[in-house]
């Protein structure tokens, strides 16, 4: 297991502004989705990304067009980071035909072919195979892509974690395995689910490198991932990243979160990645308080536009019910 020396602030003002805006967009989008859920415009499960924004934005800034990404049902932040508009995201949550999955997938199943976003997936551990498969395709077609495969700490005990780590290591598949360890799988603290919670150290079992990164610190995530992604792209060896992070809200909106203390949640809110980045930028004269407020306004307006777009969009026509079951027409 190795570390990568921290190199903060190597980002230009322009790049930092883009990153900050993306994190703010995710935050605003999720806040709007919680509100819409209370208004019963969104049904089923709703798992928000609030608190984990630095990971999606810090990691995926290193994604090239041919690269792919796949994740869990907690997929909104990654979709938006990749460039999906909040419009198609919110419409999906509203179950409208203008949604990124035509309203068929819902909150857990954001997809974007344009960005090789292979989806949000509902079965814990179910997306690992898809992630290594995308990496396999890259080697097969020699397009020099890497596969960003996100998963939660709760997926570590699942068999597919082990099977796909072994396959990726055995076959030199360029996979960046990113464990977003928010310390809980639903109400279960990871210490009650994982024997040896030093997740990065599990890389040794497969003869690959593991890294532990503070997922609340955008600068650390961005700078360390820069080198790591470059390394995976060059060597085609998979790596396992242990991102330490936290979710501010319940597992899903229906979760009261009685299993953790207010203090614990507060402590993490103090390390908020959006506050952190904006403060650093202000201190470094890359941003003014006014500028920040402007950005805030801009993002909120953009999300509001998305909500209206979703509201105004129609449900899928009933003819769609049996469309997309099969690509080909067969039989009578």
């Amino acid at each position, binding site marked *: 297991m190795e570390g990568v020396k921290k190199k903060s602030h190597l980002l230009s003002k322009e790049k930092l502004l883009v990153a900050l805006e993306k994190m703010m967009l995710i935050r605003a989008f999720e806040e709007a989705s919680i509100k819409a859920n209370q208004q019963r415009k969104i*049904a*089923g*499960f709703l798992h928000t990304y609030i608190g984990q924004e630095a990971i999606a934005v810090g990691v995926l800034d290193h994604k090239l067009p041919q690269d792919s990404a796949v994740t869990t049902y907690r997929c909104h932040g990654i979709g938006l980071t990749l460039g999906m508009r909040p419009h198609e995201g919110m419409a*999906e949550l509203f*179950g*409208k*035909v203008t949604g990124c*999955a035509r*309203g*068929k*997938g*819902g*909150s*857990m*199943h954001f997809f974007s072919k344009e960005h090789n976003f292979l989806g949000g*997936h*509902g*079965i*814990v*551990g*179910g997306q690992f195979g898809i992630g290594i498969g995308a990496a396999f395709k890259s080697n097969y077609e020699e397009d020099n892509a890497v596969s960003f495969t996100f998963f939660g700490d*709760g*997926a570590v*005990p*699942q*068999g*597919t974690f082990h099977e796909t780590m072994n396959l990726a290591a055995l076959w030199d598949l360029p996979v960046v395995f990113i464990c977003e360890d928010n310390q809980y*799988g*639903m*109400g*279960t603290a990871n210490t*009650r*689910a*994982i024997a040896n919670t030093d997740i990065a150290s599990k890389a040794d079992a497969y003869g690959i490198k593991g890294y532990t990164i503070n997922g609340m610190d955008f600068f650390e995530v961005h700078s360390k991932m820069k080198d790591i992604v470059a390394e995976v792209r060059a060597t085609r060896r998979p790596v396992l990243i242990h991102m330490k992070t936290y979710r501010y809200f319940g597992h899903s909106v229906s979760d009261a979160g009685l*299993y953790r203390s207010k203090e614990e949640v507060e402590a993490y809110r103090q390390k908020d990645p959006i506050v952190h980045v904006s403060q650093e930028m202000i201190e470094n004269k890359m941003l003014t308080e006014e500028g920040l407020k402007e950005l805030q306004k801009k993002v909120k307006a953009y999300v509001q536009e998305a909500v209206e777009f979703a509201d105004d969009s129609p*449900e*899928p026509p*009933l003819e*769609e*019910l*049996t469309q997309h*079951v099969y690509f080909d027409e067969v039989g009578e």
Partner: protein
Amino acid sequence: MAVIEMREALNQALRDEMKRDEKVFILGEEVAEYNGAYKVTKGLLDTFGPKRVIDTPISEAGFSGLAIGAAMMGLRPVVEFMSFNFSLVAMDQIVSNACKMYYMSGGLYNVPIVFRGPNGAGPRVSSQHSHNMESIFAQFPGMHVMSPSGGYDAKGMLKAAIRCNDPVIFLENELNYSQKEEVPDEDYVIPIGKGDIKRPGSDVTIIAWSRMLGLARKAADELSHNEIDAEIIDPRTLKPLDMALIAESVKKTNRVVIVEEGHFYAGAGAQIAYDIYSNLFDYLDGPIVRVTQSENPMPYAANLEAATLPSVAKIVKAAEQVCYRV
């Protein structure tokens, strides 16, 4: 008699059986400290402690296998799947181990185990979270499959399942958990393989179970306004089927509608229909009609989900069809 939610009835059955037999324990995701994702195991940790009420990591194949091994050694595990969609990652353990063990060991090792949890479409949870598993498990000899439609049955049936010395797949439905019903406090058992007439009638037999029973009741009310007197049969146990009870009803009504929340192809309803045709062919006025999901994965959109699932209107239409009222 107390009027309680079905989740509470299930909880009572678990409590009673755990009190009754030291060897009974429950394990699954969030069953202990969280009191169950749907609160079916509420308070069990407080009462029985962490030795017998166990939170598991997300390792369905692992903890299902563990439970099977423990059962072979004489314990009586109740495995909760947070939802039966997740039984798919444990499928091999259930089918190749739990289901075959007693036979392939020549009768040396039976496996007294219950796999339980919500089955079928939770509301608006889309394609990967809406599987109905009854016909999948019923396919394989070696397991029983039960699915209660309300609290009273749920309590008595779960007791029978836990006392059974063979693997039992116990399929609940999330949308039934908060449904209230009169449930006796005392101990009673509804035997595996015993169906029930939920509404006596003379014109058409509607066979429905689990959440579909509620729809069937509403449909029967509507049909009654149209002079169609429907008899509703709840098989309760899908394997083995209570064919005697079904036969009695079909001999009387000569018309059958089978309602199943799950998929059409080789669903449990296909088997029930086959058994009826085989044993009661001459009693049938016309073909049996099945009401099932439409042939697509479960969509998220409200209108598409509704169009996918069986409904009161679809059941009414099917009943009218077999009664030649359309």
